[in-house]
């Protein structure tokens, strides 16, 4: 069948909400876009463990420690669901990991910000996971089957992440003067980076249009960002805290919150590798991978030995 016909059939499937599965024909650009997006998403989950891992040993109580451990373990699981989905597009796991470690592959810039106080862990759950959920809920309906299925599983678990974060901040917001200040300070530092998670404005985003046509994405960056602002602007009232944006205000005509301009210079700077923790994060990843090499080799050697024993016994 000529390529034009295949492309036409492919688009018809997408238009009719038929999911694309790994063995189906797909345009190369569709494969590449999905591969880039899913592997970046996987890397983000994995690197995302680092800022939170920073507080596991210093969590204020055994309960909070157990919660944080479970959350970080979930992030590892999410990374694995996503690598598994990305692998269906024809790239090996090792290669994806190599691309992350060489700096060729990106991950969400949000994880290049430091976690300075315990309140940051609450703020990450509420704001960072909250922003991620907006994106992920949309992605449960993405056109590529394995990605959509991974997202369904992730969304089920992600809700616990956001709720525990909010609850943790709620406790601080009802605590001592110092705890309240710590809570507000964390919100102040995480608010703008969380807004940046949705990516460049629609007018500047290079991938959005084709991604919408292929239903990889179903909402634009600006739409998702607006939904997020509307949600958080209400929730912050429950905490009795404020968001660090003097321009934030309800717009009765639009039925949405207006908000101030994002510092795009900072956004691009962090994407390009100049954020506060870019180097630290990649170094930690590489170190873990290098130091795990002997374990990976030993496991293979053990499996080979066991297999040989079984063969002898037979």
């Amino acid at each position: 069948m000529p390529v034009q016909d295949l492309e036409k059939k492919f688009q018809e499937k997408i238009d009719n909400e038929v999911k694309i599965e790994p063995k189906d024909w797909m345009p190369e650009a569709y494969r590449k876009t999905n591969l880039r997006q899913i592997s970046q998403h996987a890397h983000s989950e994995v690197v995302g463990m680092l800022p939170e891992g920073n507080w596991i040993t210093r969590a204020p109580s055994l309960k909070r420690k157990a919660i944080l451990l479970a959350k970080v373990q979930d992030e590892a699981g999410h990374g694995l669901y996503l690598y598994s989905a990305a692998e269906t597009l024809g790239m090996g796991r090792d290669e994806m990991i190599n691309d992350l470690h060489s700096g060729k592959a990106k991950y969400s810039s949000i994880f290049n910000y430091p976690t300075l106080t315990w309140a940051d862990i609450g703020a990450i759950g509420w704001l960072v996971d909250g922003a991620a959920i907006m994106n992920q809920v949309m992605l449960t309906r993405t056109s590529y089957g394995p990605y959509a299925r991974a997202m369904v599983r992730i969304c089920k678990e992600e809700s616990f992440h956001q709720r525990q974060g909010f609850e943790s901040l709620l406790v601080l917001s009802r605590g001592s003067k110092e705890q309240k200040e710590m809570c507000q300070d964390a919100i102040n530092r995480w608010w703008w980076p969380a807004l940046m998670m949705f990516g460049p404005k629609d007018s500047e985003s290079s991938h959005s249009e084709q991604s919408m046509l292929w239903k990889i994405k179903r909402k634009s960056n600006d739409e998702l960002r607006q939904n997020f602002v509307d949600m958080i602007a209400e929730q912050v009232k429950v905490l009795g805290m404020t968001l660090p944006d003097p321009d934030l205000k309800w717009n009765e005509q639009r039925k949405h919150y207006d908000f101030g301009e994002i510092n795009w210079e900072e956004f691009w700077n962090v994407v390009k590798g100049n954020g506060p923790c870019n180097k630290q994060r990649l170094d930690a990843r590489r170190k873990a991978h290098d130091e795990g090499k002997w374990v990976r080799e030993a496991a293979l050697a053990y499996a080979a030995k066991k297999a040989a024993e079984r063969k002898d016994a037979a």
Partner: protein
Amino acid sequence: MNLIRKFYYGDIPDEKAGGNEISKSSQSQPDEKSWPLWEVFIRSKQGLDHKHCGSLHAADAQMAIENARDVYTRRMEGVSIWVVESKYITASNPEEAGELYEPAKDKVYRHPTFYNLPDEVNHM
């Protein structure tokens, strides 16, 4: 060089993959040998079928089961796990779906609704 390239339930040859190109960099594989890929099937509760839920890498079957427990059943999602190395799965080809399923198409008499019975015959 034999790369593990995964397409659920088997493999499609490169020339048939969409637009087919795999980037140049993917040809440079590290010298380290990687753990094989396993497909994971979970029985969510007693009485139900095992259902495919994803894949993972593991050195052997035992490790694949243990990893599957950690990755896919952290919230009691399963009571039984099957793992099988991905390379042993053979899949039907979507391009041949027409011919493959065609024989069932014109056999409407296999469905109960094909038969019109008088109203007096309840619950049949």
